[in-house]
């Protein structure tokens, strides 16, 4: 399957590593931009893995790590030693013929190498530079280190999830990374549009933790409007009932979030007698313990998929709680050919999540990562000739 060429003619130099930056450029690569990933000879993308034992190197493990291969499909790759004059010169020559350069180092890293926006601008006055360190490039935290977990914490989001007697509760191992990556893609597209129209490049930055504020804006707005944060209620809601996860056969679970009275009527119809005694929303919230018990009695006699099918048939928002290894076989994703199985040297066939938008019925996406990297990695270990 060939890539679409919507962004044909745009070239991006990608100095980013890990999850967020590479996801940002993956979106543009999926839409047809040429993305040239530049890895340091001295420190390659840590998403390849960290081990670096002789056995690891001999087995080409740097080429095999699924997260790395997912984030870096459709890109070209080269290694440069940016601490040396020749490596820097090559990077600047590349930037001179590109539209965007993007990086997600800690804020102090590139300036120390003498590589920053002002320098790039000298070789390409209309370059767009996107910098995406954890907390942005300005402010007292600009040099702070952050993982995707740190940015979730710093954004205050954990105060909006979990039970009242639990500590503020995180909802992902690295929530900030994917969201910052999407924002990086959006930022590039907006800046490219301005460049296209006016010929003006610019410096762009984003803070991963600020990127998470929209995910917590219901809480931020409540604080701003009422002076109080929303209470943490575990799986309950102040605005709907039933609302929770319920046990099914085979230790599986189903999430049900009844959003309105029409859905509640559907639920009553499916479950029948045992929930007939519950009335309007206020009554259901009042007697939520009893209501949850009645629903759990019904769900626990069914598989999660059976329960989901029956409830959805009646118009109720219900979803089986999948495990990570079930996602590839999800019927919806299968029917929509969401997973693209692509061959890659050293690993064979791997599923890739397609870009989650389609034009005219087709997903934008997707070839696997194009280049073999073994030679560049070997050069790294033999001392990096640049």
């Amino acid at each position, binding site marked *: 399957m060939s890539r679409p*060429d*919507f*962004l044909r*003619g745009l070239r991006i130099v990608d100095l980013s590593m890990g999850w967020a930056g590479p996801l940002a450029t993956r*979106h543009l690569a999926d839409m047809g931009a040429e993305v040239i990933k530049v890895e340091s000879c001295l420190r390659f993308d840590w998403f390849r893995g960290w081990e670096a034992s002789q056995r690891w190197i001999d087995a080409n493990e740097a080429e095999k790590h699924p997260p790395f*291969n*997912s984030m870096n499909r459709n890109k070209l790759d080269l290694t440069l030693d940016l601490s040396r004059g020749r490596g820097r010169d090559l990077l600047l020559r590349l930037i001179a013929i590109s539209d965007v350069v993007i990086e997600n180092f800690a804020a102090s890293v590139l300036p120390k190498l003498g590589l920053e926006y002002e320098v790039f601008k000298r070789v390409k006055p209309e370059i767009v530079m996107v910098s995406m360190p*954890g*907390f*942005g490039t300005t*402010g*007292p935290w600009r040099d702070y*280190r*952050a993982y995707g*977990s740190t*940015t979730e914490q*710093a954004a*205050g989001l*954990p105060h*909006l999830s*979990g039970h009242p007697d639990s*500590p*503020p509760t*995180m909802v992902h*191992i690295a929530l900030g990374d994917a969201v910052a990556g*999407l924002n990086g893609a*959006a930022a590039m597209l*907006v800046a490219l*549009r301005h460049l*296209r*129209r006016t010929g003006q490049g*610019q410096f762009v*930055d984003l803070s991963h933790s*600020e990127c998470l504020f929209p995910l917590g*804006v*219901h809480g*931020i707005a409540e604080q701003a409007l009422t002076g109080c944060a929303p209470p943490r209620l575990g799986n309950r809601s*102040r605005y709907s009932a039933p*609302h*929770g996860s*319920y046990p099914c056969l085979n*230790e599986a*679970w189903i*999430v049900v*979030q009844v959003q309105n009275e029409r859905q509640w009527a559907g639920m009553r119809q499916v479950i029948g007698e045992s929930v007939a005694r519950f009335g309007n929303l206020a009554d259901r919230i009042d007697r939520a313990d009893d209501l949850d018990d009645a629903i759990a009695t019904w769900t626990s006699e069914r598989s999660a998929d059976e329960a989901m099918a029956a409830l959805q048939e009646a118009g109720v*928002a219900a*979803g089986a*709680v*999948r*495990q*990570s290894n*079930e*996602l590839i076989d999800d019927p*919806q994703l299968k029917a*929509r050919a*969401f997973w693209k199985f692509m061959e890659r040297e050293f690993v064979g066939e791997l599923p890739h999540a397609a*870009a*989650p938008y*389609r*034009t005219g019925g087709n997903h934008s996406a997707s070839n696997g990562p194009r280049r073999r990297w073994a030679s560049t990695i070997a050069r790294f270990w033999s001392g990096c000739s640049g």
Partner: protein
Amino acid sequence: MTSGGALDGIRVLDLSGHIAAGYCGKLFADHGAEVVLVEPPEGFPTRRLPPFAPGVEVPEASGMHAYLSANKLSVVCARQRDLRALARGASLVIDHGVGDCRPMQIETLADVSPHAVLLSITWFGQGGPYKNFAGSDGVCQALTSQIDWLGESGGPPLIPGGYHAQMTAGLTAFIAAMGQVLARELGNNWGPSHLDVSIFEASICFTEIEATRAYSGQPIRTRIGVNRFRAIYPLGIYPCRDGWLGVTALTPSQWETFCRLLGLERLTRVERYWESLSRLEDADILDALIASRVREHSAVELARRGQSMRIPLSIVPTMEQLFDVDQYVDRGAFAAVTHPDLGAVQLPVTPFRLYEVPAKRGGRVSRLGADTDAALAGAGAST
């Protein structure tokens, strides 16, 4: 008149009125596009979303609607004729309308605006067995497997608070729509374009890595307790004297430095604990030790000292504290959104920053239908 923003000259029509469409449109509006909300007489569904301002009635009371709708126009429209007038020259139409404003078909749209992109954001997309399923944020988070990681071992999976799936889909839809707008301006694609964005599929950005790892035979992650994630330890939130401290110590050197910071040097001599997975096995014991030290200190102070020792620590500000965090104050992360009935409300600004053509900070929210006459007159439609 030009807006001066990066997306000046782009016109967006939102017929749909849900959160994802609202956030997608917001990113256009904040960067200078003209975004018109084409609302049914009772207003968009976002106007009925909590939180509400005390003493203000729906359809003007919603804080969510205010956040999503600053810098947009509100037009009440129930006639196809007016809708067609409004759509003339539009770059983007977000369909799946509600009430009397039925979504236009792309054929009709092509007559009045031949190069417009039509964007449909729905829970599960335009096809497949779940196409007509009712969706919610929690349902998406269940089906993507994210919440299988959340909660006590063996207990009910925890549903995160808020609208993560819808916001993420709105951002994804913005990327998709901007890609098409840019493709037209680059001369790469002039054909009719109907974008199909599934909120469920957009949410898979949070779990695709786990799914592909699982496919490659790696062990799957499942829930093992609040703020515990295999195989990183410590990764969590601890109570301090004055608030909460967020901790992540992944590498051996981060672990060693974290122990030194808390005066727990003896733990660095336990060879087993050089491995994150072994620490996780003893998480209950280690949590008690960490908590006993952390609680004597100030979170702000520990985070600052930790960061100066190069470990990723952070305060975990409450909603109340968030507005006063020095980093966010310094960067102007919040700005006033103003509404005739709500007054000025401090809300987050667009998170990515273009320094030559900055996004609008805050902005004005229209009451329901406030811009109807002006917009219809401007579009050449009779009122």
